[in-house]
């Protein structure tokens, strides 16, 4: 072990049935540093954290901790806690109906039989030294999420933790609260605690961190000093695209060329929902394919959810074909000819126990109305037509949708919305978690629909898919729209630098 390091993970491997989540990953954390762990969804960040905290057992590799002469054995979160590894999660894992002091001492067996008075006094002392504005004897739920999180950190500090893991701690905090949290983090750094900071906010990484370790697809990309890794490069590393790999793969597509190609099908002004995005403006033309891009959690899904009325809209106005309309619920949007394929297929898309047939007709059936059901024969005919048209692989139209593969489930949901013959189709991550062949089929279908005059908003985590399909990209960062790229600017390079924002040197 190096002299200054408090934690070294060497050659960590972890597999789940059918997935290699981590492969030969090294990670080193030094005393008194804030170390960002970065990577896109599925890169292996949380698996690594869970191996470290004993939630998962590693398949291979060793973990060394300062003060131990041999590799540490971490089989449970309790083991990790005893070894001085503490975690504060995004969602509060404390008990809101207990007092602050109780929360700080609960579940720590060395505290048996301590008097309440003493416990409160101790807690107050720690809170004071860390400058946390909370009183030990008050109920935790009286305080904001930020302070609750700080209490969780205080608890960790009191347990003499050497390694503090902060897993997305800032996602539900406002700016001032984030500042307070950063202040506390800096204090702890000065006291020699090693902090692992997991976040998807790039600005925050550059504000507090000293080092960055990047993971991608379960492998280690590298460890970098913050000064050596400008934002653009960080984004490139996370997405796995080198800067000079800018081969523009936009295929020649026959763009829609009707007379009305310039009319704006849908416009939004200052649209804002309760999902935490900043008000944004947006429009789409007839036969256009545009997209929202940005890192995970940048607010791209929230934007389209606001358009469709899936989240509660709290401000702004929308126009359809130039006429002001009101969209409060999904049905309002559907009646306006807007369709939305949601990001989370399982939670928001499929009706698992129902047949492929019922899943296909659902949206159109709702539009037709309660009193006008399709007859069984009609429904069967429609289902078979769409199964054939977009090649859904299913035993029959009667098969429950949950027994289909992910790609075919997605096609069923796509069929559901195509059946409504929308003017404006929103596809949020339509290609996530499905095989390459189906991905390309879906992209082709999108281009075909657009050339026939449908307007499509396409969201994907894979930038090359966006470049292939979209003629215009709206770029998002930290829940606000930060730029727009026209068709001549659609290169990996340009997209990544816009996503990264700031000046390109990171400071």
């Amino acid at each position, binding site marked *: 072990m190096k002299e200054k390091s408090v934690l070294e993970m060497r050659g960590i491997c972890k597999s789940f049935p059918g997935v290699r989540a981590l492969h030969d990953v090294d990670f080193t954390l030094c005393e008194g540093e804030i170390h960002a762990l970065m990577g896109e969804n599925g890169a292996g960040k949380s698996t690594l954290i869970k191996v470290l905290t004993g939630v998962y057992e590693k398949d291979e590799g060793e973990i060394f901790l300062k003060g131990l002469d041999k590799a540490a054995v971490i089989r449970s979160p309790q083991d990790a806690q005893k070894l001085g590894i503490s975690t504060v999660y995004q969602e509060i894992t404390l008990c809101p109906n207990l007092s602050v002091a109780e929360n700080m001492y609960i579940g720590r067996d060395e505290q048996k039989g301590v008097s309440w008075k003493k416990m409160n006094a101790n807690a107050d002392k720690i809170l004071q030294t860390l400058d946390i504005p909370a009183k030990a004897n008050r109920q935790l739920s009286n305080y904001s999420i930020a302070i609750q999180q700080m209490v969780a950190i205080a608890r960790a500090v009191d347990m003499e933790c050497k390694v503090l893991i902060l897993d997305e701690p800032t996602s539900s905090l406002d700016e001032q609260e984030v500042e307070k949290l950063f202040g506390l983090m800096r204090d702890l750094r000065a006291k020699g605690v090693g902090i692992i900071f997991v976040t998807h906010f790039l600005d925050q990484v550059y504000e507090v961190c000293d080092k960055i370790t990047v993971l991608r697809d379960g492998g280690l990309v590298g460890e970098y000093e913050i000064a050596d890794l400008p934002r653009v490069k960080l984004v490139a590393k996370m997405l796995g695209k080198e800067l000079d790999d800018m081969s523009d793969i936009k295929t020649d597509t026959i763009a829609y060329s009707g007379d009305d190609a310039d009319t704006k099908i849908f416009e939004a002004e200052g649209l804002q929902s309760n999902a935490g995005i900043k008000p944004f403006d947006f429009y789409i033309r007839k036969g256009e394919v545009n997209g929202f891009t940005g890192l995970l959690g940048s607010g791209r899904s929230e934007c389209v959810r606001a358009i469709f009325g899936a989240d509660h809209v709290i401000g702004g106005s929308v126009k359809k074909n130039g006429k002001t309309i009101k969209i409060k619920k999904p*049905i309002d949007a*559907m009646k306006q000819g807007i369709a939305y394929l*949601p990001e989370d297929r399982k939670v*928001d898309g499929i009706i698992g*126990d129902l047949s492929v047939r019922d899943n296909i007709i*659902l949206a159109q059936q709702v539009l037709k109305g*309660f009193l006008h*059901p399709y007859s069984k024969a009609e429904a069967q005919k429609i289902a078979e037509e769409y199964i054939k048209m977009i090649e859904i692989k299913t035993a029959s139209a009667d098969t429950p949708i949950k027994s289909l593969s992910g790609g075919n489930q997605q096609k069923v949901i796509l069929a559901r919305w195509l059946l409504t013959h929308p003017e404006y189709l929103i596809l949020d991550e339509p290609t996530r978690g499905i095989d390459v062949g189906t991905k390309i089929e879906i992209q082709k279908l999108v281009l075909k629909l657009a050339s026939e005059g449908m307007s499509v908003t396409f969201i994907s985590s894979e930038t090359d898919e966006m470049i292939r399909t979209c003629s215009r990209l709206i770029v998002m960062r930290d829940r606000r729209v930060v730029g727009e790229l026209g068709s001549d600017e659609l290169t990996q390079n340009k997209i990544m630098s816009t996503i990264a924002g700031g000046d390109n040197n990171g400071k």
Partner: protein
Amino acid sequence: MENKNKSIRAFFSGLVKQQVFIPLAALLILALFNLIMDPSFFKITLGQNSVGDPVLNGYLITILDYGSELAILAIGMTLVTAASGGQDISVGATIAIAGSVILRMLCGGQTTTDTYQTPLIVAFLVAVLASMVAGAFNGALVAYFRIQPMIATLILFTAGRSIAAWVNNNELPIVNVDSFGYFGGYIPGVPIPTPFFIAVICVVVIALVMKFTNLRLYTQAVGINESASRLNGLNPEFIKFISFVILGVCVAVVGLIKVSRLSTINYSVVAKDIEMDAILAVALGGNALGGGKFNIWASILGAYVIQFLTTTLYKLEVQSDALPAYKAVVVIVLVVLSAPIVREKLASISKKMKTKEVA
């Protein structure tokens, strides 16, 4: 010969997969049990009732009579279960309210009457309205305030019978009009108990509703995946709400049958524990009590099977106080058998046996 065997086997394995298999199998077991214990269980005789009209007598007729009450409730309870993933335990108490309202309307505030003070149809419609309001109360708590159905309906379960007593100022009004007795008894000249015909009407109505509306699709979609249903333009809250209101209508119908049987009411006893039988009918019908897909016909069949069980137990001279204990045994068997873990195990065993057969 072999082919014939195969097709028979295919027919049976197909039947086993059908949802109605569970209540059918239960019915078969009960029938066999009675056949062995005492075949006279199945005897039906034509007799005369006190007024001199021809009526059929026998245990099977009793099952048809009282099972029909349960069948009507099972229709509403199935919808509530499917949409909300919970059950309404207040139906017994709401039946008391509905019955009480009918009596109050018919007697017009007197303790006894020889003529209808209000037309019967008006009295019934007011009762329907009252139990729809009760259903709406339950439904609003469940759908809009997101209270667990069992807890939400606990309120009327507790208060319902007091409300029923309050409707008639704690009197027990008696309706001395012959035609009032038809609903829970016999229509002169027809030897089959009237509740059966009422149940048939209810079944036809719900069959028509399911054919000409999207009630089934919407209810199932909401019960399976509320969030996705919303994104497909449905209003999950309203659908849950309306399922409780529909159950309210079923409750009023049963309320009419109940007060018609006695021509009066006993607030604390009328339709006691009927909610448990109604829920059991839904479960016995093989419907998931956690909501989602449902088969209303299986529930209705389940209702008659439950009554078959009750009548069998009465025949065996089980004290009415002890009945619930015996029913509990059935519930245990049922619940364990329908638990996913057990089903998977059974499926794997049958698979193993099949592969052995082939080998």
